[in-house]
């Protein structure tokens, strides 16, 4: 027989739950979202002795069954719904040897739901070092459970845990606490109204204030014989419940655990003294940030160039080898460059997540949250907004997903709305080419003007993000309970396996999440750029041939001129010329207009579009740049890309919301089109106004 056992892995954050998950499932894991909501769902398969398989779900970290965020809501929703296909046959609660007391609170709650529950005590290798000793048989007896002492770092105890899971039927389901002890009268009435229901389960349904199980709660409130309590009374009862649970836990641990404090050597205190210091703390954080930026740009430029050239030659190869036709064009000019546009960001995103994973795993990120909270709060953000704002320099999409752990909805929404202002890597190609054109390659006091401009653009991005957060904080009238409780975990050396799995997972999520949209848009753009109405477009070849008949053009040059002419008369070209009156005051001509229109899908499309318009055969930056430098402004005369129009364009790209994938992810995370539409309108309008002012002042 090969029945699959459903296992739910539950535990406080920072207990090494993910390490246990990785140890059990290895590479047999996949990440997705829970149906209908954006919370991440991790599941995997674990092979048990005798050919049995366990299906393991890694639930989001939670301190208790009282949910205060969407993440935590998932846990309770699964545990209360017996009909869910993932409902666990056994719950595995992961705790950490140093915080056993607090971890047991969650354990007793789950056990009271009468689900077979085993306890994993993780990081057992630190016991001696911390002077902790445990009487396992005593604890097993009084907690009425089975315990596995595990060290994922040393790979100990995992087999024992697998045995316990395989024998889940032997695990006791006796509750730890009789719920009616909390308030005899209230629970007595509850029992009378619902004689067939588990009392503790009813209590949880009543007290959850996150959008959960509405039908159940309405049912309860509909029964007249049962008097509901006010919110503050319920809160008081929850406090009473918590105290009761701690009393039980303290009693058990009094005999089951001994701690010899003199043994403990406190590395944490010493590190904290430096890393959370008022001066040194910020300095170290700043240095770490610089290192990350440096790494993201320096280290990833090599693989990025490589990917770029591979896709360029792949596109060329397709064009050459496949029979000419619409399908080949779609493949060579739509799909392959579209895919290339996604794949090229993999190195940067992977590096960024590598750093973030290391900082999170080591416990440093919580210190950053602590250091930055006060500063960020002035602007309506939370200390936890720092991570999204940093991630935004690689790509806004994963950054916006990283806001999920911010408890206050208002702080989270503001973070989501301002993150696209941070300079993401897609702006970089645009910045680099325009800076090279309009900023002199000279040095002042040893500093390169071009490098300074680039840095300034980054600062403008951050500055605008923070400034607009400040404004949003003033105008958004959202009441949301804002509380801030951050656990400061112990410092740990990150496990390579955990870091590697996170990087692979997140990168995959980006490629498949954002990728789908970028690819779809590229195909649409390709269509709009490849087709056009009327004679001009359809007869492009003959018209251009006639025009250049007297000149001696090579086959290649002629092709480029035809392509350029076609683009000018395609749907996109027509749009570009239609908006010319609107962008002329910004210093742009219709060609830049086309590039702007097409880069509303994604900014990096700008350079490629200009390459096509200026009929440059290759995507080589140098050739595009030369062609751009030679372009003349049709109205004002002089070079089209001069200091004024260049700065105007840089600023436009710094502020405009030109990224469909970001809009899509914002829609998903805020669950409405309202916020992404506001983002699109306001950011673009702001970009327009700033670019206009810049050009008019500088020209």
């Amino acid at each position, binding site marked *: 027989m090969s029945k699959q056992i459903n296992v739910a892995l539950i535990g406080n954050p920072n207990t090494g739950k993910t390490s246990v998950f990785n140890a059990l499932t290895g590479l047999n894991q996949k990440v997705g979202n829970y149906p209908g909501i954006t919370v991440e769902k991790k599941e995997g398969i674990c092979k048990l002795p005798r050919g049995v398989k366990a299906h393991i779900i890694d639930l989001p970290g939670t*301190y*208790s069954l*009282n949910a*205060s965020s969407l993440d935590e809501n998932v846990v309770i929703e699964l545990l209360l719904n017996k009909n869910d296909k993932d409902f666990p046959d056994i719950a595995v609660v992961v705790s950490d040897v*140093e*915080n056993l*007391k*607090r971890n047991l*609170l969650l354990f007793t709650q789950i056990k009271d739901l009468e689900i077979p529950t085993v306890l994993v005590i993780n990081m057992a290798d630190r016991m001696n070092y911390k002077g902790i000793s445990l009487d396992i048989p005593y604890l097993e007896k009084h907690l009425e459970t089975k315990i596995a002492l595990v060290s994922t770092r040393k790979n100990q105890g995992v087999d024992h845990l697998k045995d316990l899971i395989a024998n889940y039927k032997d695990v006791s389901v006796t509750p730890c606490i009789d719920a009616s002890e909390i308030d005899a009268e209230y629970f007595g009435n509850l029992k009378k109204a619902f004689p067939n229901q588990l009392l503790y389960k009813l209590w949880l349904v009543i007290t959850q204030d996150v959008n959960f199980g509405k039908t159940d709660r309405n049912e309860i409130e509909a029964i007249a014989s049962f008097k509901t309590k006010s919110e*503050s009374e319920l*809160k*008081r009862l*929850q*406090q009473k419940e*918590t*105290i009761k649970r*701690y009393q039980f836990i303290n009693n058990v641990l009094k005999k089951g655990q001994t701690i010899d404090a003199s043994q403990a050597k406190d590395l*944490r*205190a010493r590190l*904290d*003294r430096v890393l*959370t210091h*008022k001066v040194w703390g910020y300095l170290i954080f700043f240095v770490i940030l610089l290192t990350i930026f440096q790494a993201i740009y320096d280290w990833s430029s090599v693989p990025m160039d490589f990917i770029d050239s591979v896709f360029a030659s792949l596109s060329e190869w397709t064009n050459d080898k496949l029979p000419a036709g619409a399908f080949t064009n779609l493949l060579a000019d739509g799909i392959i460059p579209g895919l290339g546009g996604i794949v090229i960001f993999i190195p940067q995103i992977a590096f960024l997540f590598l750093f973030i994973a290391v900082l999170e795993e080591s416990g440093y990120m*919580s210190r950053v*949250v*602590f*250091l930055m*909270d*006060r500063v960020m*709060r002035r602007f309506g953000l939370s*200390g936890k907004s720092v991570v999204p704002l940093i991630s935004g320099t690689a790509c806004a999409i994963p950054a916006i997903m990283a806001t999920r752990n911010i408890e206050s909805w208002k702080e989270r929404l503001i973070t989501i709305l301002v993150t696209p202002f941070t300079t993401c890597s897609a702006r970089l190609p645009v910045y680099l080419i325009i800076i090279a054109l309009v900023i002199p390659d000279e040095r002042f006091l040893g500093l390169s003007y071009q490098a300074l401009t680039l840095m300034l653009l980054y600062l403008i991005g951050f500055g605008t993000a923070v400034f607009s957060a400040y404004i949003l904080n003033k105008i958004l009238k959202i009441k949301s*309970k804002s*509380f*801030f*409780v*951050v*656990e*400061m*975990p*112990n410092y740990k050396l990150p496990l390579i396996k955990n870091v590697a799995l996170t990087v692979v997972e997140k990168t995959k999520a980006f490629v498949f999440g954002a990728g789908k949209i970028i690819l779809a848009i590229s195909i649409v753009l390709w269509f709009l750029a490849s087709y056009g109405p009327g004679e001009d477009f359809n007869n492009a070849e003959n018209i251009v041939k006639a025009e250049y008949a007297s000149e001696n053009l090579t086959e290649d040059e002629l092709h480029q001129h035809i392509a350029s002419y076609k683009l000018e008369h395609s749907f996109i070209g027509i749009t570009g010329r239609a908006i010319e009156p609107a962008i002329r005051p910004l210093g742009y001509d219709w060609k830049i207009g086309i590039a702007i229109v097409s880069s509303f899908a994604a900014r990096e499309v700008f350079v490629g579009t200009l390459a096509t318009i200026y009929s440059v055969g290759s995507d080589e930056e140098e050739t595009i740049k030369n062609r751009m430098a030679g372009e003349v402004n049709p109205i004002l005369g002089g070079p089209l890309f001069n200091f004024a129009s260049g700065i105007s364009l840089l600023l436009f790209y710094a502020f405009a919301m030109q990224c469909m994938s970001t809009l899509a992810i914002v829609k998903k995370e805020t669950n409405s089109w309202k916020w992404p539409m506001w983002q699109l309108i306001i950011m673009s309008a702001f970009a327009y106004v700033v670019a206009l002012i810049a050009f008019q002042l500088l020209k």
Partner: protein
Amino acid sequence: MQDTIANLKRGERAIITDVSSIHIPLKLLEMGCLPGNPVQLLQVAPFADPMYLNINGTHLAIRKETAIHILIEKIADE
């Protein structure tokens, strides 16, 4: 006026005497911020906010606006 966690100085220890369950997130109570439990202020960020505490063995940071609702009795240093 009674002492609250917000009045602690760096390194000082105290015992929690009372918490106002309306002003304090349940999460904090569940992390051990309950009457009778020990607390020590480990570090403060600039402007004394947030505060980095060791409450009953759990290391955590809370904002000052929460800290003023946790009543304490200071323990003199031995």
